Each structure stands twice: as structure tokens, then as C-alpha cells.
């Protein structure tokens, strides 16, 4: 056990829970009368409250984006490589706000919370959410924190969708919008992967039509398979080959022996699936993947992304990764083209990486340079 945290870490952090009692009208037409959001913050909000940045998390993310909850923590928050003193999102400069989104399963109100109307867990009855609902709840979080405008709203993947939606819904409240490995909308192939993952969950006998908590059970194997499917698509062929190749974990191909052979990749995927199934809620997974599928930035703007981005006032940083096939560089270029078509300020970098979609979470020299230099160029009104 270490007795200190790394120097470039935000160190010991603790989440706080904020309660909201003003009803939130959701895009599905239903209303959440009250809800809680779990939040972590890093760095200090300056006197003029001009240095706040919002981190929007992706499918399986949460509020714990950086630092450690205790000295025993084996791993820091999910984006620790990019948030901290001297890191791209420099906590010496910025006040960083990370939350667990509504519908999540890490403490914010979601399917595992108790539905006040029934006294039982919401489960499958939790209202279906869209990206704009998250933006709306995050805007209320900003109000609560006294933040009129974000220096930057930042997100990767599904988080990038929230950042873009922010820029359109609240143009006056977003000065910079950082969209990493994201897309204007999912492709059919992408929806297909999500549907396969959902079907894996729903066909688990323990799913019980989503009421598994009431039944005292969990669709663990379905959730694990869902995660395995996701995981395959987040990695590149190259990254998997490099890490696992055809290495065997057990068994052999010796002639005359009928041993069961297990490849390393099998055991790795199962481990990923199992540990995910122990820490994530199946209904949340279904909810989040649906929000991904439904998102279409330009739907209400005549299906014209240029028209959509005309409403934005932020400067944009768009980043993609060369081997990301789930949110390919082509998707990011569509964002960039719409931005230039709408005459908006944009920086775009396509980062050479072997690690597929996962690259947006991993340390990478050039990605850190581009991201860090862009963030350094943001004016927070201080000398």
C-alpha cells in the first residue's frame, strides 16, 4: 500500500450528493419530481467563477474521474491520465466538475433508486432518458454551483454527445466544447452492437423483465456478455493481437490429448465481463445504450448539422483516434465539417493510436499535447 499519492494526482477526493427537488420534465414527457446527483470536484472555483469545466461521462463512466477515494485504492478515477495538476485538464487552472449522470448506478438517481411512488426500486420503470435530459440536469447542477458559464464542457464518446448538446441548448453557457471520439449520431452498425448487448441482458433468465432487484437477483451473465461485446468493439484488432495474440491460458494442442483449450483473450474478456457485472446495473446499461442510439444532434434542425451548429457559440476541439472503429475518425470529421460549414471555431486532431475507441481514456503523448495545449489556450480571465 502506498503512503502518498502521485504528485500529479488530485489526491484524495470524496464525492458529494446533491439533492434537487424542482421537478425535471424529461424529453419522454414524464417528470422526475426529485433526484440526486453524485458529484466530485477537483481544483478551486475562482472568484469570478470563470474557470469551471464539466466532465460528461461515457456509457459506463461516473463521477469518479480523477484522484483516489483512499490510500487503498488500487486505481485512480477513470480519466486520471487527463485530469490533475499539470495534466491536460489542469486542476491548477480549472475547477473540474464530474458527475454521475441521471439514470446511472453509482449514486445518482437511477433504476436502482427507490421510486417514491411505489417504495420499490424503479427498475425498468425508470423513465427513458435522452442526452438532452442529462444536459438539463447538468445545467441545474451548474446553477446550484453558481456557474453561469462553463470554461469548457468536455466529453468522450457518449460524453461528447452531451458536450455538443450543451453547446446547442445553452450557447451562452459553454465557452469551449471538447468532443472526443464521438459522433453526430450512431451508425446502424453501432446501434446493432448496442441492441445485441441489450438482448444479452434481457435474455438472461435472471433479468425478470427488469425487476431483478425486487426478485433479489441480478442478470449477471447477461450483463457480462453485454460488456464483452462492448469491450471487443472498444479495442482494435491490432491492440487485441498485441496484448493477447493466440496465447493460451490453459490446455494444449498436443496430438492425442483432448484438453480443453482456453485462449488468454477468452479469460480476459470473461474477467472484464464478470467484474463489470458486479459493479454495474443492467437497467442502467439498457438506459444508457438507448440514449446513445436515440441521439441525433441535428434531428430537430432539419437533419442538417450545419444548421444545428449555427446555434453554438463555443469554440470546439474535436479529437479522433485512427484505429477507433466504433466512433471512427470519419464520424469526427462529420462534426468538424458541420462546424466549418457553420463558420464556427474548431481545432481537429486525428491521433495515431493502436488502441481503438479505448484510446480516449489512455495516456498518449500526442493526445495529451493537443488536449493540454488547447486547454491551456482557454482564457479564464485570470493572469
Amino acid at each position, binding site marked *: 500500500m502506498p503512503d502518498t499519492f502521485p504528485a500529479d494526482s488530485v489526491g484524495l477526493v470524496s464525492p458529494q450528493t446533491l439533492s434537487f427537488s424542482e421537478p425535471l420534465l424529461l424529453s419522454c414527457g414524464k417528470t422526475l419530481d426529485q433526484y440526486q446527483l453524485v458529484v466530485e470536484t477537483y481544483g478551486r472555483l475562482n472568484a469570478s467563477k470563470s474557470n469551471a469545466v464539466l466532465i460528461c461521462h461515457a456509457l459506463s463512466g461516473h463521477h469518479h474521474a480523477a484522484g483516489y477515494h483512499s490510500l487503498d485504492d488500487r486505481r485512480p478515477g477513470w480519466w486520471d491520465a487527463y485530469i490533475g495538476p499539470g495534466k491536460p485538464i489542469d486542476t491548477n487552472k480549472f475547477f473540474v466538475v464530474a458527475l454521475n449522470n441521471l439514470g446511472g448506478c453509482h449514486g445518482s438517481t437511477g433504476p436502482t433508486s427507490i421510486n417514491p411512488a411505489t417504495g420499490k426500486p424503479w427498475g425498468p420503470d425508470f423513465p427513458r432518458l435522452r442526452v438532452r435530459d442529462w444536459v438539463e440536469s447538468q445545467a441545474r447542477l451548474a446553477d446550484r454551483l453558481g456557474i453561469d458559464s462553463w470554461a469548457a464542457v468536455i466529453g468522450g464518446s457518449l460524453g461528447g454527445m452531451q458536450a455538443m448538446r450543451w453547446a446547442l441548448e445553452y450557447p451562452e453557457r459553454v465557452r469551449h466544447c471538447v468532443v472526443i471520439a464521438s459522433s453526430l449520431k450512431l451508425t446502424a452498425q453501432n446501434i446493432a452492437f448496442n441492441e445485441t448487448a441489450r438482448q444479452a441482458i434481457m435474455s438472461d433468465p435472471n433479468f425478470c423483465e427488469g425487476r431483478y432487484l425486487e426478485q433479489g437477483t441480478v442478470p449477471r451473465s447477461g450483463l457480462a456478455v453485454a460488456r464483452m461485446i462492448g469491450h471487443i468493439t472498444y479495442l482494435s484488432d491490432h491492440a487485441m493481437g498485441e496484448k493477447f495474440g493466440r496465447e493460451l491460458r490453459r490446455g494444449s494442442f498436443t496430438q492425442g490429448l483432448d484438453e480443453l483449450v482456453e485462449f488468454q483473450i477468452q479469460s480476459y474478456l470473461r474477467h472484464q465481463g464478470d467484474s463489470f457485472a458486479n459493479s454495474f446495473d443492467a437497467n442502467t446499461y439498457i438506459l444508457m445504450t438507448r440514449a446513445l442510439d436515440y441521439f441525433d444532434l441535428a434531428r430537430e434542425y432539419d437533419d442538417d448539422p450545419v444548421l444545428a451548429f449555427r446555434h453554438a457559440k463555443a469554440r470546439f476541439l474535436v479529437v479522433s483516434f485512427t484505429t477507433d472503429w466504433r466512433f471512427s475518425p470519419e464520424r469526427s*470529421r462529420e462534426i*468538424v*465539417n458541420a462546424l*466549418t*460549414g457553420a*463558420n464556427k*471555431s*474548431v*481545432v*481537429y*486532431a*486525428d491521433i495515431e493510436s493502436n488502441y481503438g475507441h479505448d484510446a480516449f481514456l489512455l495516456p498518449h503523448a*500526442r493526445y495529451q*499535447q*493537443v488536449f493540454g*495545449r*488547447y486547454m*491551456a*489556450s482557454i482564457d479564464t480571465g485570470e493572469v
Partner: protein
Amino acid sequence: MRLDLNEIQHWIARGSRVLDLGCGDGTLLKYLVDTKQVEGYGLEIDPEQINRCIDKGLNVIEQNLDRGLGNFADNSFDTVLMTQALQTLHYPHLVLDEMLRVGKECIVTFPNFGHWKARWYLATRGRMPVSDLLPYQWYDTPNIHFCTFKDFEVLCREKNIKVIHRQVVNEASLKLLKDLAPNLFGETAIYHLSK
């Protein structure tokens, strides 16, 4: 500032929309943004140059020019610039077409391979010229499509490209000679073009 960059600014209208192909470290684009209030985008593929553009707060987009400008609409820019990059392209003639499609006007600068020093080098040594301006060996040079002023003029004629201005710049001393025989004494060509 490089001599060719200094000349170019005279042909850019205040507040116009400018696309700079191969914008390098963004020196020219930054100058145009600061002094002419242009709405500018730079395209670049070199990561270190892109970093420098980001430091300057410029709009820089990572894009390989040899794949064309298909992501930009016809006549969507007042001026499309390309300084000292023509000779590095795989398909300079196609990029030129694209520039004229996307921009109402174009400005192209390139080193003149017909300059007397290059000719003298090749004639006397029988080897590809290496100079201060073009310091690379033939096998590792980014400059793969050299041309002379005359070559470029011929290309413009063939493509029916209108030359609005043409100018030759030099390190000071040879001004008179440059005006007399630009293809022999001019180091850098600057062309202001339209369809």
C-alpha cells in the same frame, strides 16, 4: 515574416473568409486574423505544426491535402491560400482544381526551380540542387513536385485559370535582374488566381 507572406496580405480583404492549406505553424493565418480580422481555418498534417497553431488559438484542422477538399463546399471561402506547399503534394494539379472550386480566389506560392542557382548547381555538378532555401537531399525531400514559373504558367493556361496577379520575390539585391528575367532570378513565385 517570410517575404512571400508579406506580399500576400495585400490581396486579402478585411474580414474575409480564408482557408490556408498547409498552414504550418500558423504564422500567416495568425497575422491575417490579427491584422485583417479574417475568419480563418488552417489545414495541416504535421503534429508539431498543429500544436503551434493551437498555441496561437487558431482554427487548425488535421487534414491531408492529397485527399482533396471534398469536405468544403463550392465557393465557401473568399480566398484559399497555399504557401510553399504545392511542391510537396502528390497531385498538385488536382489540389489546384479543388482550391479554385472551394475558393472564389486563390493564392499560391512556391519555390522557383528555374532559379539560376538551381540551374547552375545541376549544370556544373550534375546533381540535384541543394541550397539554403531547399536544403534537402533528393531521396528524403518533402518536395516531390518541383516546377518553374514557366511550368506553372503553362499549367494555368491549360486549365484556363485566370492569373489576377503574379509576383516574384527575392532576397533584396537582385531586384533589377528579377524584373528582367523572373524565371532565372526569382526565388519564390506568388500567384493570385481565380477561375
